[in-house]
């Protein structure tokens, strides 16, 4: 049974009439064209579908869209338009963080989450922060370096 849902998506108010039990990832990809949200495992293990729900990182494959009603959602499409998002992306590109790229939108969301909570993370804190995001290509070291680079380049903007 369809229900009318309203939420904020990447800063805009949106409405959708749909089955509230559909997975949030499907609604974001199919109804709103947010194909930067990747489906890697369908069970919350790999982190490729990570998004921000009220500023907190969640895996959108585990959330029924009904739970998004009235909430604030930011996907990679929105994050990459922000100053902080751009900063992370530039650091990822310069630091060699990207290989096949399928995990990377989720990794950028994870990096954002880490840096918003902790503007000056240690290597161990970064590793813990991305431990829910699986990357099969890079062995993680250059992703860790790139997040450090984003912390250094951003400096005080992470404290805002």
């Amino acid at each position, binding site marked *: 049974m369809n229900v009318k849902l309203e939420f904020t998506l990447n800063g805009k108010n949106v409405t959708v009439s749909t089955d509230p039990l559909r997975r949030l990832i499907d609604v974001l990809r199919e109804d709103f064209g947010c194909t*930067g949200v990747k489906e*890697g495992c369908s069970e919350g*293990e*790999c982190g490729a579908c990570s998004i921000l729900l009220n500023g907190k990182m969640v895996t959108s494959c585990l959330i029924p869209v009904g739970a998004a009603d009235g909430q604030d959602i930011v996907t990679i499409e929105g994050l990459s338009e922000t100053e902080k998002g751009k900063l992370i992306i530039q650091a990822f590109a310069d630091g060699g963080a990207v290989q096949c790229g399928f995990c990377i939108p989720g990794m950028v969301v994870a990096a954002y989450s880490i840096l918003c909570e902790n503007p000056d993370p240690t290597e161990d804190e970064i590793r813990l922060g991305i431990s829910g995001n699986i990357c099969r*290509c890079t062995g993680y070291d*250059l992703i*860790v370096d790139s997040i450090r680079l984003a912390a250094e380049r951003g400096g005080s903007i992470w404290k805002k």
Partner: protein
Amino acid sequence: MATVNDISKSVRRVDAVSKCEGKAKYLPDIDFRDCLWARMIRSSVPRGKIIKVNLPDLPSGYCFVDYRDIPEGGHNYLHMIATDWKCFAEDEVRYVGETIGLLVGPDRTVLADLIDRVSVDYEEQIPAVTIDEGLACKGGAFVNGNNIHCHLKIETGENADEVFKRCAKIVEETVETGFQEHIYLETNGACCCPEGDGYVIYASAQCPFYIRKSIAPLLNISPEKITVRQTVTGGAFGGKEHFPDVLCGPLLVAAHKTGKCVKMVFDREEDIENSVKRHPSKVVFKTGLDKEGNILVMDSKVYYNVGGYLSSSFVVLQRGCFHVAGCYSFPSFRSEGFGVATNTFPSCAFRGFGAPQTLFAVETHMCHLAQMQGLDPLEFKSRYFIKQGDTTSTNGKVVEKVMIPQMLEQVLKASDYRRKVKEYKIGSGRGIGISFYNHGGAFTGNGEQSLIKAHCRLHKYPDGHVEILCGQTEMGQGFHTILPKIAAHVLEIPIEKVVFEDPDTSRVPDSGPTAASRSTMIVGDLVEKAAKLMKDRYSKESEFEIETEYEHPEGYPWNQDTFQGYAYLGYGWGVCAVEVEVDPCTAEVAVKGVWSSHDGGHPVDELIVHGQVNGGVLQGIGWASTEVMENTDGHFRQTSMSDYIVPTSMDCPRQGVDLVDNPYEWGPFGAKGLGELVFNGSGAAYIDALSRAIGKKINAIPVPTEKVMEYILHGKKLGEAD
């Protein structure tokens, strides 16, 4: 290492930002308007006769596609080197997951419901699942009367049987490795669209030209009638080398039947359960020593679990046997390889293509030969390091300078190996191990010259842009950046002026597969040569093309019938040390350090190479430790990312990475193969470290925590004979 004008100096990857922003379109992200969707109906039994496929009533617009939809004159097989793997099962099935048919229709939700209501009646037969069951012809042989799909034998030096007669001691030992699942982050997917008098395939794939060659016989059309366009590919590691044919073949038949675009994307569980894996292996060594304990002869029997169909496995087995001598030269060497038919999903390419299994085996065997004599493995292995000019396992010579001694020094220093070896007593819970490995770059023997005959074109446009036209694919390894960088560097133009798109087989020449660590080494060289030919004319002529073709250097013969000669012109070389600490209560293993040194010739981009090293080394540790993929009664037991465990960011500390500069004569700017090499040795180093830490002999991987506990409680002591 890099100087300002050195090609090694890193540039930003051209695909990085679009991937970060989520703008790169992978196959599932592309909206093929009004396409139909397909779901696969597969065998649920490992071996049997199909009695009947029971379908529910199909709503209007939905159809079932199987072998009977192959038009007259078409052939029901997929051409994947061999042609034994059927596109659709007809009356028999040889493994769980074998394609029986497709259900096709417009709505995925309806399809999901329909597929649950399909059933197949079988007359089940007893399956052979393991190598031993295959060899024993359990349930009756189903291939060649003996279940041996393929076989080869190679030897060097004095006849092994003669040498064994005068050995003071003969040591026999078996080393085994398991299945490994690729876990490319993007699962398999493809779409086939009728267009004009042909078809266009969109696929997440490594080898677009392989696909059209493989599936064209289904409709008895020429491969040129099928255009393959690679979509941005989210990892592959060999798992999208031949396997996309298994999706694209049925999709082609479905598009032929319906006259519409048909798309199929596997979900993760479906992908893990029903895709190719790394070959499980069993290597049985028989090594003869003199009375001082020196190796006089090493003989091995190499068994690979090929699964139900041969497809590409003979080539995998050959590479396995060619690498079973590792980085060593023995006075007498012999190896015999057997590709064993079993009722498991056919095994196929996975980074290393047969070399990792035998390299793991020989490294482990060498450690045990040393420890049996109370010697340090490093000291023992060092006696046999192969050098430039030495005879290879196929009676060729090592052409290049082998820099293992220099690489070893680097790794010893970085890891503080010598101090740790003394300090960490055997069985103390801490251990450090070391391994040596290589990887023959590009296709074996004269494959590049006689099978592939790679072509590559450069097109200069009036506005100064240069386009690279070849079939090489970006799957994460950096090739979209590497090739333009080579061209830009030669032409002395900014890399932004070089265009290199995902290949479309209708407009690029066939430069061979993106596999076998050949892309930089072989196709990169063709680009370098073309760019050199273009350079003088670049500013004088408005628009023109240069085409180059692979030429094999003279004087390095290979006989593919006898497997004699120069199997590889250039090897990548590696040394890796791993340190571990084992929790005495829980048997959990913590990796405390990883240090490697690699020779991939002169690196074309240091950061890209660094990323390859990090990823390959960690994937190798995963293979040896947590990546358990069991198969019982023909069914894979691990079917999700919660139970098939690949390494996370917490499982390994920052790696120490060293690259030696050893320019390769025939590679672009001195580069040679590297992408597979970096996988080939970390597993052996990890197991060496772990076995020292727990003081137990380990002969099989993977070794997850529960196995570590078993070894601690019941394992044989290091140094004990079998």
